[in-house]
Structure formats: C-alpha cells, structure tokens
C-alpha cells in the first residue's frame, strides 16, 4: 500500500522502544517475586503497574519524536 500523504508520520528508529514492554512483560521470571516492596506492594505488583506508566511514556516519546 502506498503511504497516504499527511496521514502517516515519518517512521522513525525511535519505534524500536516499543520492544521494551514486550521483553519486560513476557520475561515473567524476572518479576515473579515478593521483594523489594514499595508502599506495601510486593514487587510483582508494583513492577507490573510501573510498566503501565512506562509504556504510556514510551508511546508519548515516540509520538513527540514523530510529530
């Protein structure tokens, strides 16, 4: 499909950042533990919730760079 002018932003190498959420989330053994705790949350829980915020930050960065 030919790209449509104006609708597709310039594709940028920065998109490789999107691989990080996949590596971190699919590598379950890296976060399946209880410590260190944060605000009473075991590691397993706060780490995965932190990735929600990180993935939003990544999408924001990619958007900023491309637009």
């Amino acid at each position: 499909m030919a790209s449509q002018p104006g609708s597709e932003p310039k594709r940028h190498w920065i998109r490789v950042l999107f691989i990080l959420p996949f590596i971190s989330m699919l590598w379950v053994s890296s976060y399946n533990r209880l410590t260190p705790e944060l605000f009473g949350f075991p590691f397993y829980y706060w780490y995965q919730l932190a990735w929600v915020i990180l993935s939003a930050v990544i999408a924001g960065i990619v958007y900023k760079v491309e637009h």
Partner: protein
Amino acid sequence: MNWPALTVFIALFVFVTGLGFAAARWRAGDLTQLHEWGLGGRRFGTWVTWFLMGGDLYTAYTFIAIPALVYGAGALGFFAVPYTVMIYPFLYLIFPRLWSLAHKHGYVTSSDVVLGLYGNKWLALAVGVTGLVATMPYIALQLVGMQVVIGAMGVSGEGWIGDLPLIIAFVILAAFTYTSGLRAPAMIAVVKDVLIYVVVIAVTIFVPLKLGGFAPIFAAVPVAKLTLAAPVGDTYGAYSIYSTLALGSALALFLYPHSLTAILSSSSPGAIRRNAAFLPAYSLVLGLLALLGYMAVAMHVGTDPAYADGFKTYGNNFAVPALILSVFPGWFAGVAFAAIAIGALVPSAIMSIACANIVSRNIYRGFIKPHATNAEESQVAKIASMVVKLGALVFIIFVPVPYALQFQLLGGLWMIQVLPSVIMGLYLRMLSGWALLGGWVVGTATGTWMASLTSFKAAVYTVTVLGVSFPGYIALWSLIANIVVSVVLSLLLKPFVTAAPILAE
C-alpha cells in the same frame, strides 16, 4: 432490599437513558447512513475516542471478573495488567494504518477491509461470522455484571420476575441504540468513566485507610497466592501460561468488531496514536481494580454470613459487590453499582452496533441484496442491533452462567484467527485469500479441538517441544498453526492464482 442504593442507582440510570436519546442530536448527522449511525460520522476526536475505547476495552465483566479471578486464584489474575501494557504498541503501530485504509475506501468492518485486500468474499464472510460468533456471548456476559449488581441491591424474585430489572435495562439500551447509534454509547461513556474513576479512587483510599495501608491487604492473602508457582522440571508451567494469556489477549483485543468500531470512528490516525499514550490511564485503573480482589479477601467478605447468599448465587463474581457493600454507605454503593451497570451498557451498545454493521454490510449487502440503498443498509443494521441484543438476553436467561463463560473462552480463540487476514495483509502482499481461508479453517479447528480436550473448561493447552513443556493460551497456539498454513499455502498457490486486485490506489 437496599433502598438508598437502589434509589441512587435508578436515578443515575434514568439520567443516562435521557442522555442516550439526546445523543441523536449531538453533532447531528443523517442517521439513515450506516457510517453516521454505526460510526458516528467518523468525527470523534482524541477525547471522545479515548472514552469510547475505554468504554469497550474495560467492561462490566472486567470490573467484576478480573477482581473475582484475583480473589479466587491470586497472582494469575493479574495477567490483565501485562496484557494491557502490550496492547498500546499494537494500537500505535498497526491501527492508524488500518484506519487510513478504511477511511480511504469507506470501510466500516474488518470484513470490508479483507474484501478490499483480497477480493475474496468467502474470506470476508468467514471474518464477519467470526466477529459475530465471538461477540454475542461477550454481550451476554456484560449482563452477568449487571445481574450481579442488581442482585447485590437485594432485588430478586422467582422466575421471570427476577429477570425483570435486567429486561427493562436491556429494552432501554436497545431503544436508544436504535435511535442514536454510536453517538449514544460515546456520550454515556463519559458519564460512566467519571463514575468508575470516583468509585475506584474511593475504594483504593478508604479500604487501605480502614485496614492500615496496603501491606495488611497483601498480608491477608496466603503467600503462595501472591506470586506464580515457580515451574519445576522440564516445563515453563505458570510462567508460559501467564505470558501467553497476556500476549494472546492483547493480539485478540483489537480484532473484536467493537474495538474496531471505536478505532474507525475516530477522526484521524493522530487521534489513535495519541490514544496509545492516554489509554494506559485505564490500565492503571484496571490494575487497581484487580487489587479489589485482595481487598475483598482482607475484609473477609467470603466468610461474612451477610454475603453468603450472594456468593452462593454468583460465585466469586460477588467479591467486588460484597466489598463495596461492606465498606460504603448505601447511597454510595448505589453510585458504585450504577457505575458497573452503566459500564455494561456502553460496551453492550458498541458491541451490538459492531455486529449490526457486519450483518448489514457484509451479509445483507454482501450476499442477500447487493444493490441495497444506503438507507436500507442502515435500517437493516438498526434492526440487526436489536436482534443481536435480544439473542444475548435470551442467552443469559436460559443458559447457565458457567456455560456462557466457556463460550466466551472459545470466542477469544476464534477471534484471534482473523489476525492473519486483517493485520498481516496490511504489510504482506504475498498472502492470497484462499490460503488465508485455509489458515482460518485450520486455526479455528485446532483451537476448538484443543479446547474440547478440556471440555471447554480451560483456555490452556500444553505444547511439548523437544521434551520441554509449554502450557499456554490455546488462542496463541492455534494462531501459530493458522499463520503457518496461510503462508505456506500462499506460496504453493502462487503460480495458480492471479494477483488479487489489491487496493485500487
């Protein structure tokens, strides 16, 4: 009967009903045109798209079922969090491209896209029917959420009287969807989200306050449940189950007709990309909601005689309503239950509209009356939206809940089978329609067979490679079979098939 809760609940319900009917005049368009009725005229900007996507990604079933899973099974239920983390890259990278294609050619459904890409109407039909079959029990399951909260307010009765509140709620839903189309859920989604946020924030402040922080909440849960069981021996055990459930769900999510409806109704690819950055706000809420399961454990609602009947009737799905009743005064419980019930209405409306678009565009126009006028097409869609909802209602009243859950499980693994046709075709020109249809048949059959081995009670099948076991989500394994067959058949068929009339540029 919990009168304070019921009064607030009914007041909020009446309010959103009015909103639903008023929505027909919002950014008024010609509602006899399918793209106006069924896609809101494709004029929704970043914010409305955000509410709309949030409205159908996080449904009443999610608000009830995920905490219920955490309540019952512990750490495994948290797979919903990595699942939502992984959907945003897909949303950012793939769907603006699909939007551009759909916008250019006036596509309303994924079947339209497939027909445009490969010119094969049987493949388009397969994609459309997959969407219908996978969505109908999903709508029925929204009703489970509604049933649980109505039951939690003490409204009950024998036989059909007991189902009456649910039937009334559904008739209202059907009526405003019929008159206002997608504009109705888009408008109500805003109210729903405000209510949900208020409730989630209230719960996550008050319960820890009551119990002395989050540490006591986690301490109330048996340690073995707080993390996944570490695999022993030649198996990836709970690890591969957890990661494949998350990845498979993420891949399937945007293929559902209703997700696609929300995406296609946005005004620009930019609105979709900005949403990839904004939607995680919902995921945080989802994560907090999942923890309501542990809060329910910490509040000992399961052993409280006041809730024994609820748990007996609704199983672990009653965990969140019981938690809300035990923590809040009646009137606020009413707000919370209204939030959950309205949270069921919005996705139900979007899902039925999405199904209706398929019926009118791809089945009525595609196979029954190819020269139907736009007005006829839109009229068929409106009627189809009623029929689909009626089907879901009959389903919930006559089919016992556990059965519906198994059906939804199948729905997910069927839905993912359209991925090669809808998504891979955007990037690869080597795929042919007949080969993809072959892949779809193999994927659907493999997935259904794997699920049948568990009598449709579990979503997990163990694949063994070189002596190492990978238990995992069936949807993902059957998708791999589907992709392999699609690609290999495309290569084999290449000499015999003239290049598909791909995308008149």
